[in-house]
């Protein structure tokens, strides 16, 4: 198993709050990804990065933003959370095309 960490594991917040989901990996992987997944549904790629100062949007339109200032850190930020943002957010890094996932953050926006 790879060393990729996501915090918090669970988060319940009110509408309009700004939140940041943390993702860190200690393997020195250049490529990192954020996926959004509703229960029993497919994973949707929302952001990815190929290295420091590189970020791209995925296929799923998202109101979130990401940054990649350090190789090991790839945080995702929601400026103003809404109930439609309720979902599981999975972070991953890759090397040689193989993806390693964190345990995810389950976000509930009330």
């Amino acid at each position, binding site marked *: 198993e790879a060393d990729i960490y996501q915090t918090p594991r669970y988060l319940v917040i009110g509408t309009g709050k700004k939140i940041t989901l943390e993702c860190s990996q200690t393997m020195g992987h250049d490529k990192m990804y954020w*996926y959004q997944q509703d229960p029993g549904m*497919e994973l949707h*790629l929302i952001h990815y990065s190929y290295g420091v100062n590189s970020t791209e949007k*995925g*296929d799923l339109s998202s109101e979130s933003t990401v940054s990649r200032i350090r190789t090991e850190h790839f945080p995702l930020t929601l400026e103003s959370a809404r109930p439609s943002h309720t979902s599981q957010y999975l972070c991953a890094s890759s090397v040689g*095309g193989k*993806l390693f996932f964190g*345990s995810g953050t389950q976000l509930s926006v009330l």
Partner: protein
Amino acid sequence: GQQVMQIPQYQHVQEGEDFTTYCNSSTTLSNIQWYKQRPGGHPVFLIQLVKSGEVKKQKRLTFQFGEAKKNSSLHITATQTTDVGTYFCLESGYALNFGKGTSLLVTP
């Protein structure tokens, strides 16, 4: 990377029965990867196939890559309740898009 189509979307089997899921692409794939996600968990890498006609086995799991490199299959022999989960295939590439996967339910 392109998204491959996976069938079936759901499969319910009795423990001990075999199970197969298929991935199909309209274009030639450079490789195919398989992942498993347990309920409430995160996807875990199982295997990557690269060569035309490649077959790899992991205990009761058999992975195949088609001769034309446009399809792949995962076959589980004598399913167990621990096989429950969603199995995803995808082509490793620039932006890694998962499909809907196949959700397997195994009842004792």
